[in-house]
């Protein structure tokens, strides 16, 4: 099972981009379980530990709003914190320590323009949503193929358009 973990605050403008990406993925991506969360908390580690791959989707800061980036993730240590949120790397490390496994993982981000209060995405981020969806689908497809036994025939429905 490949897990897509989309997180962010949908009431804070572009921070909700992952929710929009998740919404589109739910209608178009077979072979993956899509979770939509406000923020990452420790129990996500349990879900992650049961997956063969996990793709986190989030907003990011940066100079070019609407830019879609993909990077690999590895488990990493946490810092003492005052907030309830933990990072994707910490979720992976937690899965490894508590459940003995941490799957391959990637982070797909869309650079935000505005985090102002509101339910709408900015224009550049809205335009970037299809690209972010494709980036996630590409990873799902690649990782699904890698985990399938040799000779398995794929129906067209199992291969999302890239």
């Amino acid at each position, binding site marked *: 099972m490949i897990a897509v973990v989309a*997180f*962010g*605050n*949908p*009431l*804070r403008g572009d*921070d909700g981009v992952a929710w929009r990406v998740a919404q589109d993925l739910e209608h178009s991506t077979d072979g993956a379980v899509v979770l939509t*969360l*406000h*923020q*990452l*908390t*420790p*129990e996500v*580690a*349990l879900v992650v530990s049961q997956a063969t791959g996990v793709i986190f989707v*989030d*907003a*990011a*800061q*940066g100079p070019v709003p609407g830019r879609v980036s993909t990077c690999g993730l590895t488990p990493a*240590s*946490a*810092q*003492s*914190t*005052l*907030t*309830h*949120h*933990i990072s994707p790397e*910490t979720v992976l*490390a*937690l899965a490894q*320590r*508590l459940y003995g496994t941490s799957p391959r993982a990637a*982070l797909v*981000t869309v650079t*935000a323009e505005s*985090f*102002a*209060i*509101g339910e709408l995405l900015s224009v550049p981020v809205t335009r970037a949503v299809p690209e972010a969806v494709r980036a996630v689908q590409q990873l799902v497809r690649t990782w699904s193929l890698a985990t399938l036994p040799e000779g398995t025939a794929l129906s067209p429905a199992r291969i999302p358009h890239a």
Partner: protein
Amino acid sequence: MSRRIVIEPVTRIEGHAKISLYLDDSGQVADARFHVVEFRGFEKFCEGRSFREMPAITARVCGICPVSHLLASAKAGDALLAVEIPEGAKNLRRLMHFGQIIQSHALSFFHLSSPDFLLGYDSDPAKRNILGLAAAHPEIARQGIRLRQFGQEIIEILGGKRIHPSWAVPGGVTRPLTAEGRERMLRGLPEALETIQRTLVWFKQSLDDHQDEQRVFGNFPSLFMGLVTSDGGLEHYDGNIRIVDAAGKIVADQLDPSKYEEYIGEAVEPWSYLKFPYYKPQGYPAGIYRVGPLARLNVASQCGTPLADQELAEFRQFGRGAVLSSFHFHYARLIEILFGLERVQQMLDDPKILTTEVRALARRNRFEGVGVAEAPRGTLFHHYKVREGGLITWVNMIIATGQNNLAMNRTVTQIARHYVKGEQLSEGMLNRVEAGIRAYDPCLSCSTHAAGRMALDVTLLSPEGAVLDRVTRG
């Protein structure tokens, strides 16, 4: 001239906290200010929306306590409809709220604060966190996750999803509990009860190791406020307001929560966006009060369940009257989890929990409504004004973290006075300031959490503004 130490966890946008410690000329801490950038813009955002949408909208304020906002908002909607909602709806809302209390307290205790207790306040901050806990005490970390999951499962079974459920609406709830859902909840109860009882045992045994922290983590006289039942029992969903003083004496009782403006004032300070609520009859800042688990156990005459009442009797040994140290917020959280689990059991054992009479239908009958519930962190007020047609014209939300603002400032001052020595920042001081704030479990999570946020930044400044010392974490 005073000197200032700044402790600033810098997130990329609103929602961050900053701590300034003011030293006097002799190098002693004179004052402390804990600044939280408030989410005030949210209230403006709600204007023009229908009050019927408000539970679903406000539930999205926060990923940790969405149910508290959902319920306070739905109750404000009940008031606008001017209906008495069916008993079955009240019970189901209450059941979901216990799920909320359990999951939120479990996150606070097991994953945010237990690294302090189990690994020590002076341990390496790189290890004194959830991963350090997972390495040193994996079973406790897993139990915390399982307990939190149990609370979330209650929310999910009732609301259809574990975050942002739009199940509670003005007039009741949108669907009843099914027999299958009831069975699923019952299946998880024994393990949850075992976990919390085991946790209470080790936590109480560890208290001797934290005597210093009990003494200086917000150990001062104040008022305490919370909802109570008509006979003064522990209450989280309904009831009226009770206020007690440091001696445990009842100062005010059975106050109508919808008339909060008569007894709660909100002061403003130029150095913080966060308001400073206080008990009006005692003025500002003398009317400082605390809310949340510690306050609820201080105001309640009894819990009303057998195991929680036994624990409450032990808990009360830590105070002469009210239990004053904010360190004991942690202890109170555990007792509230136990109480919540007992009440969940009682409610599920009652066949009436499966009633299908769960919603009163009505049109808007009032132009103003207040809804109040005890969120995990304390009393939460939602106050709406609407116009003909039900569109919101004005919103006021008083959140628990705001009501504990004065107390958090005083807590940081007390800790800093005890631990700041000279002109260098020590890890020990920083760890304890963080932990002192964590005792209140302030909700800073209404901000965004996208990739790229920064961590804790502590700067020590001379009277002339020169940087004497700086510590950055993360």
